[in-house]
């Protein structure tokens, strides 16, 4: 059953899709023709797609919104009215408005701002903004849907979790790893070689030490640990950004000339036994 929420999502999907095709075709620089349409339609298999990043993001929006839409409309029982029908109730059960705070609009606004600012500053920021917008769209939509599912906020939360956790947990974990790796490797690249040893040796030692500390001191509170993590995260990220801005260290005159056996090719002669 297609209700208003899914209608909205389908519209969003259509918008994303058309947007992707137009954008992909327009940036392909192929003029207007069959290729310009075929390319984006076939994911670039036949014909051309211009700017891949924007295209993929729009397509991603379309796919995820479409998926959510289908998902919503198959879930008749997620909808109070539908449930009522199924159960043969006279009146639609009351669905109280959600009570939780919703941060997504704020993040959405920031992302949108990033896109706008990015237009002026650089592609990296646009991408960041678009990623943010996509995440917001998906999260918000799923939450909006889940919040209306039943009257019980806790249950709603669990429904949302069942659906979103499979994405959030792995992608979130991957994101964390990627951020740490990027930041730390940037720091290593920026500091002088000896410094890299120090950083590389010290950071794990600190982590290990703090871990041991927390474990041996059960009195350290949850919030203290959180604060520690926050500080560490800020340090790593800050260091990473600073290092990225500073750029890589100058190359120390390259490596020593290396060995001189310029082996041109390796030809293997099979040994024959002597007579």
């Amino acid at each position, binding site marked *: 059953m297609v209700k208003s929420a899914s209608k909205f999502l389908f519209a969003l999907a259509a918008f994303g899709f058309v947007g992707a095709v137009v954008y992909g075709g327009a940036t392909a620089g192929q003029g207007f023709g069959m290729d310009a349409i075929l390319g984006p339609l076939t994911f670039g298999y036949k014909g051309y797609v211009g700017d*891949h990043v924007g295209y993929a993001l729009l397509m991603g929006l379309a796919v995820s919104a479409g998926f959510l839409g289908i998902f919503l409309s198959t*879930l008749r029982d997620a909808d109070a009215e539908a*449930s009522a029908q199924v159960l043969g109730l006279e009146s639609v059960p009351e669905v109280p408005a959600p009570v939780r705070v919703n941060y997504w609009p704020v993040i959405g606004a920031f992302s949108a701002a990033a896109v706008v600012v990015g237009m002026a500053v650089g592609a990296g920021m646009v991408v960041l903004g678009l990623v943010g917008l996509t995440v917001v769209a998906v999260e918000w939509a799923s939450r909006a849907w889940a919040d209306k599912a*039943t009257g019980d906020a806790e249950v709603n939360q669990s429904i949302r979790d069942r659906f979103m956790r*499979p994405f959030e947990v*792995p992608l979130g974990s991957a994101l964390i790893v990627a951020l740490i790796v990027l930041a730390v490797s940037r720091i290593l690249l920026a500091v002088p070689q000896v410094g890299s040893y120090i950083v590389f040796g010290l950071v794990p030692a600190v982590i290990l030490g703090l871990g041991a500390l927390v474990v041996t001191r059960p009195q350290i509170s949850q919030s203290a640990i959180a604060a520690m993590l926050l500080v560490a995260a800020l340090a790593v990220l800050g260091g990473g950004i600073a290092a990225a801005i500073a750029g890589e260290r100058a190359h120390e005159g390259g490596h020593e000339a290396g060995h001189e056996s310029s082996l041109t090719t390796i030809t293997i002669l099979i040994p024959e*036994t002597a007579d």
Partner: protein
Amino acid sequence: MATTDGTLALGPGVDAPVRPMGVFARPGSTPGWRGWITTVDHKRIGIMYGAAALFFFLIGGVEALLIRLQLAAPEGKVLSADLYNQVYTMHGTTMIFLVVMPIGASFMNYLLPLQVGARDVAFPRMNALSFWVFLAGGIVLNSAWLLGGGADGGWFNYAPNNGVMFSPTHGIDFWNMGLIITGISSLVGAVNLIVTVLNLRAPGMTLMRMPVFVWMSLVTQFMLLFAIPVLTSAQFLLLFDRLFGARFFDVSQGADPLLWQHLFWIFGHPEVYIMILPAFGLISEMIPVFARKPIFGYPFMVFSGIAIGFMGWGVWAHHMFASGMGPISVAAFSVATMFIAVPTGVKILNWLATMWGGKLRFDTPLLYSVGLVTMFTIGGLSGVTHAVSPADTQQTDTYYIVAHFHYVLFGGALFGFVGGWYFWWPKVFGYKLSEFHGKVNFWILMVGFNLTFGPMHILGLQGMPRRTYTYRDNYGFNFWNLVATIGAVIIGISFLYFFWIIWKSWKDAKAANAVLSGDPWDARGLEWMIPCPAPAHNFDVTPTVTRLDDFWHRKYAEDESGRLIRVAETADVSMKGDGTGVHLPSPSYWPIVLASGLPFIGWGLIFNLWFCLLGGLIVITGIYGWVMEPADDPEAGHGHEDDHPSDSDDSSAAAEVAAPEEAALVD
């Protein structure tokens, strides 16, 4: 903490709808095609493996017929050189990876839990996963035909001919991706079945009380477990070379093409035993039934199987006798190869000894079993002549080799499998295949088979190289090639006949509407203790095993004079199939979801990395959806709490093994 499976309240005083989690509930046992897609029942999965393999067999068979048509006469014009190369490559690849291996998997899936007395395999969802992943791999491999042409480098695809420089179309990429994916399937299956055999045996079933088929399957799965990653590593190197410009096989930068050959054959040779051992196991089950004697020398059968499994790792380079490894390596591998004939010979002779002195009832399964014993011996003997490496430099890459491996693969593996179909068909589908037609079919197949592949010995020794799309008029090749083509058509007809037999027997059985006993052959294994077709829950109570061929010994025992007499009616020692309260693992969507992501990753690597992203997302969803899936269908109303370990696969099957056990032994 919120429980994820709690009933959703619709508001005060409203009952929960029937499916509280909508599509996110774990599916219940659904009838129809949905039931098949979400099934985790090892029996259904076994059937699907078999059906898919038969389908691919038709494809591979049509490719074979094209080969034979092209070669029926000199200077054939049926296929171009280019197309011929694709057709024979895909023929070999399809037959090996999408026919023989999955038929083996089909038998193992169906029979292993039954023969060890288990409720299901150790990881039922992973079992479903390995089937769907296999199917995905087969689809990726064959999608090449629609997306620009098949692989054209031969089934072992030697470097550097498999590089983009020499094979610029995407055929080999499909081959590579397809086989990496089927490799994942084999690996998952291997882990699953090994754990099943090691861990889920019924009480009393010690290792040396396991049926020979279980043993051979265990050896096979261990070989797969260790062989597949070797192929995968080689294929990753190739993938990096072809798609990302690595230099693993770039000779101009110093690479050595023999690396590929070694890696391939380290996989490739164990692979040939992976293909034959399940068939060996099957006939070891069938021959005693029709000889009405126990298998001769059970421990020798077991240990020779294990020996083959071990020795199979030490002979791979016999495929490279002409590759210039140098005399020392050649000599070592030559001798090692010969000795693998010893354990194999033990098997052959023990089968004959089992028949010796027996009361042979030549039903179709026995015909096929004897067919295997004899035809495989022919192939094995030509194998030994290859092992004589100086002679192999004359034989290698000729039709003499083609003759060898069709004798062992078709005359060995496939004969065993077809016999197995006749034998276990009633257990699986509840009706017997026609005995009369089965026998006629056997003889047609036998004649066709020998007409096709027998002459290839001669052709090879006369110097006809394999993998050639054409040959010359005046080289003495014409006559035998024509004979081989005629033989191939006869094989084709015999398989059409086989399909007809299935249909006919089914119709007759439906018309007769009789209920088949659970033990139509008066057989020996535990699987015959339950009704035909096997009920979803396998055993009403988990049997307790006291010796090899336990079921047989419940029916028969020796009297004072040492003669075997019947001590119980079959029906009395069989299970009725009406067990209740047996809790089965719930079906699941996630295996097929996860598997469906893989082709996109494969195609994505070839065409456009964005597809990979899509495929990756599907896979991740699949994995985490799987992990977070409740262990049971909420409707099942099963009492125990659902906090199953989440990072690992379901232990449900294992848990459920704790079904009622037989209280007392029968005798």
